[in-house]
């Protein structure tokens, strides 16, 4: 059988860059395959995706050598429109790619461009919308949909054209854990019913492997580093070498001294075969390991009591929520989009006023303070650094808050330099912000808040869209400033972040507080997980697989062991 996509000694260089982004790629993808392309940020996986869907060379200009054929045709000789008939792409940002004003229009977009008569548009849109269960929302605007629904609409917009190859560019990036899991299930289902060829670009390996994948292509520095089955991948050192996060159950097994081999089918917690020896090894490790330290009992810094809030349109965003933040802790506030997490931080910062309840900071009533006054003790870092940065030079950006507070020039210089040193940005102090990477920009925004010397810093999704290396970088940095005595509150739905860096999690759902407990307890409570749109950790399944009743204790033990290893 001939491959439907074939890269042969393919090299690509963007015009704007001095060095090629892809080097000497040799890759074949066959009909009906499901392939995961994996790798850290900047490894070239998005560029590879652009080559497959035709954005390269038709939208992004550059030079190529070697050959890339799709269904036997050299892509250079085609047009982006020819290629869009063969490869359908679901982009990462389901907000940004929403072209239509309503769901129906967005799904119809590709057909409209083919001049399909209106009557047929109605029929085909209705059919595909049903397939991905957004049929009830045909006349809704994108802002009225959840993240998962938006992605389903994007998918429908591609499926409506009956393309043989479906390409997903980081499909999990903006989804909460439960929705991400459903997305992977949906992709799998569509692959089966349509017998499509599926290519997924993603660095969240464990989540994609929730459903079977035929092959994993690992990329690094613009080259293909490995082209293996998931079982082979997990049994090797490749993940560690290339900075991809290992599935948690694999890490736990390794801690327990279990050898991972391809014949144990380790690609999923549901498929893995553990021998009696392996199970005993896990049990022994569990009994031997020490329990994690009990969470601290520091002084209460911020006390929100019985807070309620509703938006002008009457939607209740928070309903009788009480949260106490203790000095020196790293707290996670979790829940699905729209659960009230962001509203909570807006109330604390003074962007909105609660309808009921009280907000105290060290016993002082926050309601009496303006946004600016609150910012002196409570810093707020937005999710997207590009929305916060308004100055051209890094030092000016960090100094901005001090300047507006009328701090003397010498003190500004000193404090800015100190902060830049803490944040590892001192060598870049004379650089323009635009020269930095996304992760570095994030640091600049954190620095611009830290310089104001707050006691609490609230971060909205600090690691969203970051690969493992950048995630670790940002989180280790936050842990470091936490050690320096700053209390850190993170709004997140990243379960690894909860497990690895937080002791306590406050779980919100539909504006109500569901739980306020140790992260291990939250992530092993199936009922809570369901309601908060989280996902059970695979450690929970591993505990059960090994006959360990106390899954929470098992997870605590893992956390303790993991922190020791990382430290």
């Amino acid at each position, binding site marked *: 059988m001939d491959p439907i996509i074939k890269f042969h000694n393919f090299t690509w260089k963007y015009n704007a860059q001095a060095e090629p982004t892809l080097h000497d790629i040799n890759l074949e993808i066959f009909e009906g395959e499901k392939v995961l392309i994996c790798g850290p940020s900047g490894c070239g996986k998005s560029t590879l995706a652009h080559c497959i869907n035709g954005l390269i060379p038709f939208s992004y200009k550059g030079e190529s050598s070697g050959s890339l054929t799709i269904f036997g045709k050299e892509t250079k000789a085609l047009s982006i*429109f020819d290629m869009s008939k063969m490869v359908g792409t679901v982009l990462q940002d389901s907000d940004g790619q929403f072209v239509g004003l309503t769901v*129906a229009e967005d799904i119809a977009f590709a057909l*409209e461009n083919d*001049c399909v008569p*209106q009557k047929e548009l109605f029929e085909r849109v209705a059919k595909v919308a049903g397939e991905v269960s957004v049929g009830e929302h045909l006349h809704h605007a994108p802002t009225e949909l959840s993240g998962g629904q938006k992605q389903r609409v994007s998918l429908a917009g591609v499926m409506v054209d009956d393309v043989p190859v479906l390409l997903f560019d980081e499909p999990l990036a903006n989804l909460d854990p439960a929705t991400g899991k459903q997305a992977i299930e949906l992709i799998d289902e569509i692959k089966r019913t349509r017998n499509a060829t599926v290519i997924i670009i993603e660095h969240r390996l464990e989540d994609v492997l929730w459903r079977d994948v035929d092959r994993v292509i690992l990329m690094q520095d613009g080259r293909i580093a490995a082209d293996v089955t998931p079982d082979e991948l997990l049994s090797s050192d490749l993940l560690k070498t290339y900075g991809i996060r290992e599935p948690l159950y694999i890490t736990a097994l390794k801690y327990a001294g279990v050898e991972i081999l391809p014949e144990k089918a380790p690609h999923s917690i549901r498929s893995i075969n553990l021998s009696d020896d392996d199970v005993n090894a896990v049990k022994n490790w569990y009994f031997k390991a020490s329990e994690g330290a009990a969470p601290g009992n520091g002084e209460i810094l911020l006390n929100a009591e019985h807070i309620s809030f509703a938006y002008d349109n009457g939607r209740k965003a928070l309903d009788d929520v009480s949260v106490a933040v203790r000095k020196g802790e790293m707290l996670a506030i979790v829940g699905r989009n729209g659960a009230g997490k962001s509203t909570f931080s807006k109330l604390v910062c003074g962007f909105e006023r609660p309808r009921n309840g009280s907000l105290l900071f060290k016993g002082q009533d926050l309601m009496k303070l303006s*946004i600016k006054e609150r910012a002196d003790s409570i810093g707020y870092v*937005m999710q997207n650094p590009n929305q916060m940065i308004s100055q051209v030079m890094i030092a000016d950006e960090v100094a901005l808050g001090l300047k507006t507070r009328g701090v003397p020039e010498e003190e500004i210089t000193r404090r800015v330099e100190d902060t830049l040193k803490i944040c590892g940005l001192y060598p870049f102090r004379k650089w323009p912000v635009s020269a930095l990477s996304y992760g570095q920009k994030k640091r600049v925004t954190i620095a611009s808040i830290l310089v104001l010397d707050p006691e609490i810093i609230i971060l909205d999704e600090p690691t969203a869209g970051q690969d493992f290396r950048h995630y670790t970088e940002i989180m280790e940095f936050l842990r470091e400033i936490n050690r320096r005595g700053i209390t850190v509150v993170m709004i997140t739905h990243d379960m690894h972040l909860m497990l690895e860096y937080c002791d306590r999690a406050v779980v919100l759902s539909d504006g109500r507080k569901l739980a306020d407990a140790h992260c291990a307890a939250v992530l092993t409570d199936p009922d809570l997980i369901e309601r908060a749109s989280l996902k059970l950790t695979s450690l929970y399944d591993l505990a059960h697989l090994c006959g360990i009743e106390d899954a929470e204790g098992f997870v605590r033990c893992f956390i303790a062991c993991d922190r020791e290893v990382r430290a």
Partner: protein
Amino acid sequence: MINIFNYIERQSPIHRLTGATKLVCFLLWSFASMVTYDTRILAVLPVAAVILFGVSKIRLKDVKFILSVTAVFMVLNNLLVFLFSPMHGCEIYGSVTELFRISARYVVTREQLWYHLNLVLKYLAQIPMLLLFVTTTDPSEFAASLNKIGVNYKIAYSVALALRYIPDIQREYHDISLSQQARGIEMSKKESLVKRLKAASAILIPLILSSMDRIEIISNAMELRGFGKGKKRSWYMARPFTPADILSMIICGLLLVLAIIDTAKMGTRFWYPWA
């Protein structure tokens, strides 16, 4: 948050007209009110406009902001006309009927006041129609109908996209402004207007950068789904012209014709009862 230019979905006969009809009617109506200074016609138009506004089920509070802005413009416009040419009305109507005197230069005449009355009526005739057009036209359907009356579909679609992104950009501006305030940039009324404007301009940089990102994503998304492939495209939201559409356009067309004939018959654009 303030809605500046936004489609407001309601069920009304005006909403049911196609976007192209509304555009054509708006243009014809505007030309008519621009051509004539016949107060008899100009007095009828605002009344008709207010009635249409009622029919459209758009409420005053939906358009409060833009109305107050145009009211300020109207007053300013009248004030400037009076300041720079206080005898403009007399030149037009060819007589001088002095009412009272403010200074040697500024004399209030009946002709000038009459001229100002006409000016105000022109505002009152056009502004409600503009608002009506903007608030009752679904951007997608508008694009479809623009394309139908011969506008290139790429241009028509860009118009619809621009309209669609206005609320998104407003929301983003709001978010950015809050985070800037948290860093100590005062944007409330406590600060002087100049400083507030300066602070607002600082928000523009992140806003422009993120809009550029947005443009790249959306244009990729559109191209990947075949936008720009053919000379023609079909439209999910297209609606056929109904008799109501034709009738509306005929009425507005007749209005323009009336204004032109009226002007021609009078031999001047200006009507003055005391002439």
